[in-house]
């Protein structure tokens, strides 16, 4: 089956709601950092933009725009202790099993079987999308996030957009 053309669908969807066309970033090249040790020695962290939060804190705004909120998620959080608030995708499956979009249990298993070296004490949920103020993202929010990854001595970041 042919993949969905999200560019066309989003343009149509938001156009019908009166939004101006989104200015997509189109990059011709991409940076690349090679890891300098085996994966089995790497510290691997996790980030999703799927609007997931710990059930004890206020949920994300499901209709958020320009929301730069970024939550720390304790790596010991039970897979039952999440809430998902995001109107922009169907999270029925992820409500049932958080690993569909935020594979905390699977990542821990890869530590146990030695595929990866370790996980940090915290994972991440945020950058929910529909962020139009890209300058703030690039100059403030992302650098602050990078500082946190460095504090945790992260070698590899797994990211799941939703």
């Amino acid at each position, binding site marked *: *089956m042919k*993949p*969905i053309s*999200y*560019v066309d*669908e989003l343009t149509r*969807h938001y156009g019908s709601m009166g939004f101006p066309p989104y200015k*997509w*970033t*189109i*990059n011709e*090249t*991409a*940076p*690349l*950092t*090679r*890891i300098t040790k085996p*994966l089995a020695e790497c510290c*691997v962290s996790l*980030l999703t*933009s*799927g609007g997931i939060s710990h059930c004890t804190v206020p949920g994300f705004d*499901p*209709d958020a725009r320009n929301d730069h909120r970024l939550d720390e998620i304790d790596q010991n959080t039970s897979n039952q202790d999440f809430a998902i608030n995001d*109107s*922009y*995708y*169907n999270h029925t*499956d*992820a409500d*049932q*099993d958080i*690993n*569909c*979009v935020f*594979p905390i*249990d*699977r990542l821990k*298993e*890869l530590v146990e079987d030695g595929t*990866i070296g370790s996980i940090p004490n915290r994972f991440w949920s945020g*950058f929910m*999308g529909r962020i139009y103020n*890209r300058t703030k*993202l*690039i100059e403030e929010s*992302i*650098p602050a*996030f*990078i500082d946190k*990854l460095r504090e945790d001595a*992260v070698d*590899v*970041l*797994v*990211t*799941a*957009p*939703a």
Partner: protein
Amino acid sequence: MGLVCRSVEEAGIATTYIATGRDLTIQVKPPRSLFLNFPMGNNFGEPSNQGQQTAILRRALEMVEEVELGGTLEDWPESWPAPVTYFTGRKSE
């Protein structure tokens, strides 16, 4: 999220991006992407399908070791068991 990956990568930390929007991913070009023609939010597959979730996560991690060119996108070979359609959104009440 693609922009986040690019900046994190530029800062010297390797990233791997598990995507469900192929055209969006091609545009923003994260350093390494594994594309699954699955619904958004099912980046790692079906609920309770641990084997599938692990296989996807493993492949995304292997790409960190293998990919030699920034912007590489790999297609996951499995297809979703039902038609994948655009989710028009739910307004919260």
